[in-house]
């Protein structure tokens, strides 16, 4: 390991050890984001309900899906998809939003990665509570298998942390990246089974590859399947997710190696 790599690893651990700072900053970010609005944090739920109602009843009819299955499926899908999108788009601004601190306080810059990770993850957790209500309303099956959603969600958090890291570095250097990524996620949204069931695509042989090769789909599945069916996701989803996370980790360490020392100059 080279000297600068060792220094980087040391910085990451030092930043992680300062968890009382980034947890507090992350929670504060969520509180402040909604402070001046009348509805406050409830906006997360309003947002979600409007989308679920609008998409849900139209698509359930359009696709001939029973609402009892489709609405919970759609709700959890949207929550998780928003989590991934904000990891990329909001996460891309992790350093930019913390510029005032980075430029005058001598703390490792990864602190601000963790800060964004907390605020994005907390927002997702709050949104997840909406799924509980929907699940009760539509009597989604619950069993010991439901608990498999917990390790699934941890995999997703890991992916989120890596996405924040990658896009925070890239976007600080090239300010176009967050915009490009946001366009990319919009395209992926229509390709990934979020507002339509995967089975519909699977029926068309020519389109089934779109699902099998889409890491986003599998990442959703490791959380969504246990929550909806109280059992594990397909083993292939775990395999692809593990591979996806490994690729993200490799990308993150490459990006760190390239840009970490230049971040403060690019702000």
């Amino acid at each position, binding site marked *: 390991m080279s000297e600068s790599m060792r220094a980087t690893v040391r910085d990451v651990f030092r930043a992680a050890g300062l968890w009382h*700072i980034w947890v507090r900053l992350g929670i*504060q970010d969520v509180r402040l984001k909604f402070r001046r609005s009348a509805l406050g944090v409830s906006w997360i739920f309003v947002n979600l309900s409007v989308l679920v109602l609008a998409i849900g009843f139209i698509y359930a009819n359009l696709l001939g899906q029973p609402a009892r299955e489709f609405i919970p499926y759609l709700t959890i899908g949207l929550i998780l998809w928003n989590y991934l999108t904000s990891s990329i788009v909001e996460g891309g601004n992790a350093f930019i939003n913390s510029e005032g*601190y980075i*430029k005058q*306080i*001598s703390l490792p810059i990864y602190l601000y990665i963790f800060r964004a990770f907390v605020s994005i993850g907390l927002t997702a957790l709050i949104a997840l509570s909406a799924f509980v209500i929907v699940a009760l309303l539509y009597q989604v099956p619950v069993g010991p298998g439901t608990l498999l959603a917990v390790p699934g969600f941890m995999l997703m958090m890991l992916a989120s942390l890596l996405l924040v890291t990658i896009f925070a570095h890239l976007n600080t250097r090239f300010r176009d990246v967050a915009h490009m990524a946001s366009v990319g996620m919009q395209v992926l949204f229509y390709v990934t089974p979020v507002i339509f069931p995967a089975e519909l695509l699977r029926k068309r042989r020519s389109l089934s590859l779109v699902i099998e090769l889409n890491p986003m789909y599998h990442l959703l599945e490791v959380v969504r399947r246990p929550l909806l069916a109280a059992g594990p996701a397909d083993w292939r989803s775990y395999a692809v997710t593990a591979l996806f996370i490994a690729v993200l980790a490799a990308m993150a360490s490459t990006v760190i190696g390239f840009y970490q020392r230049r971040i403060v*100059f690019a702000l």
Partner: protein
Amino acid sequence: MASIHLEQVDLEFRVGAERHQTLKSAVRQVGRHRSVGRTVKALQGVTLSIRSGERVGLIGHNGAGKSTLLKVLAGIYPPQRGRVAIDGHICSMFEFITGFEMEANGWENIRTRAMLLGMSPREIDEKIEQIAEVSKLGEFLDIPVRHYSTGMYVRLAFATSTAVNPQILLLDEVMAAGDAAFIESARKRMNDLMERASIVVFATHSLDVLPGFCQRTILLRHGHIVADGPTEDVVRIYIESAPDAPGDRVDTPQHP
């Protein structure tokens, strides 16, 4: 024991390349020589050692590299070449008008800043009343800092920053802002803080306060250390040295 060691430190800013680069220009550059963008050499071959107990002044014209050197000492700017070894808890006071959460109120901002400067939550609980008192912001602490004036930002940041117990204290011309009454009380508090720290490095333009504060002074010019020694000698060199480069002449009035 706190200590600072720099060895042959070079730091350059890539002006064009770093600040204005877009993805488009980066793609265009692929395969070409990296000739786009000017580099400004902010520090060149800087070598220095500061031991526990030393108070060091940093002087030089605007753009000589004082602030850049302080930021290297703080670990904020990683230099391109050379070795930096800093031992001890650092507290830096560079500017008091950025680094606020605009929607948060004064109390919350005190907590955030104090935490970032290395205070533990319990320490903050103990000191927060005293910090509030020093800031003289009274009930303004209850409103979001977005409504504050510049002077109020300075007071809030100053009161918080001076409550820490750093081993290494880095100051960049911080007494410049605030109204006269505040500056008077601030000076005393700053002196106390400087007494507590085991190393103080401070950049300044006010040559008259320098001898009272520190025995040792470093003179920078164009990113080089030109002189490093007893304050009286270095200040004399600084005053006597005729402005010899275009960059130096900026400060002196022009006579037709």
